[in-house]
């Protein structure tokens, strides 16, 4: 998000996705008292959809403990991955997203023998495709106009897993932008 006020739009899309995937509806939303959660449009929307609001007391983040603790876990994992690979700090968003993907598929809750992924989707997750974040990778150049003698691949940095396709998310150094590709050879050394 560029601005905090985009939180409302993010919540609306999360609500739709969560309802569709789980078949359940959100009953209660617990948050802090940030201005992004206390806008009139947010209140109206929740009232309309019968969602109860619960707020932590002002300056008491302890009462919002579940999400605050997960924030910490995600940040720690993202920092460790960025440090290990020496990836530029501008890719913090990708690192955080990769951390969320990893945690959802591997996190086994206390008093449970199942991963978060299985509790939500009802099937065991697969992590066969996982590679080390920030590894050097070679991305196949699929340009149809590619000349006979031109190189077949571009160098890149592995930045996690595409949320939309069954593909890796990589930074293509030649193009200077992030691309999704399945034709990737990852050098994990």
């Amino acid at each position, binding site marked *: 998000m560029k601005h905090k006020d985009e939180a409302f739009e993010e919540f609306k899309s999360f609500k739709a996705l969560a309802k569709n995937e789980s078949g359940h509806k959100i009953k209660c939303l617990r948050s802090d008292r940030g201005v992004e959660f206390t806008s009139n449009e947010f209140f109206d929307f929740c009232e309309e959809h019968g969602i109860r609001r619960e707020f932590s007391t002002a300056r008491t983040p302890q009462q919002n403990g579940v999400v605050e603790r997960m924030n910490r876990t995600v940040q720690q994992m993202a*920092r460790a991955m960025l440090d290990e690979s020496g990836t530029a700090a501008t890719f913090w968003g990708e690192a955080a997203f990769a951390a969320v993907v990893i945690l959802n598929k591997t996190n086994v809750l206390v008093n449970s*023998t199942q991963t978060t992924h299985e509790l939500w989707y009802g099937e065991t*997750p697969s992590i066969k495709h996982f590679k*080390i*974040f920030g590894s050097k990778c070679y991305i196949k150049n699929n340009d149809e106009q590619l000349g006979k003698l031109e190189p077949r691949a571009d160098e890149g940095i592995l930045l996690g897993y595409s949320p939309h396709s069954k593909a890796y998310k990589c930074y293509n150094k030649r193009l200077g932008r992030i691309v999704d590709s399945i034709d990737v050879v990852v050098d994990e050394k």
Partner: protein
Amino acid sequence: MIKGRTPNNLYIFEEGQQQCYLSKDDEHWLWHWRLGHLSFSQIRKACKYQEIRGLPDIKIPDNTICKSCQFGKQTKTNFPEKEGSASRPLELVHVDVCGPFRTRSPRGEKYFILFIDDFSRMFG
């Protein structure tokens, strides 16, 4: 790993035999990195219940210290338990200065100092 014969203390390697094996010791680090530096206790938990496809059974290495984990996640250590206290008055005295206070006293003072005897907790 390379196998060779040693007549005359000289290793002789036959051609076409050299291969690079990933040793069993490296596998736990490989998955530690792939899983975004997930702690070994969490990895063990995931292995134990066998709820994840593609994750091999990983043992915890002897030395679990990872540089990037320290840079990314290090916290303060737990404050140690008290190891023992004084057995006689004035054997150990605790002291601290408190202040500065925003409001000065009538005599213009801004600080006070506190001495506490460890044995009796008498203070002044």
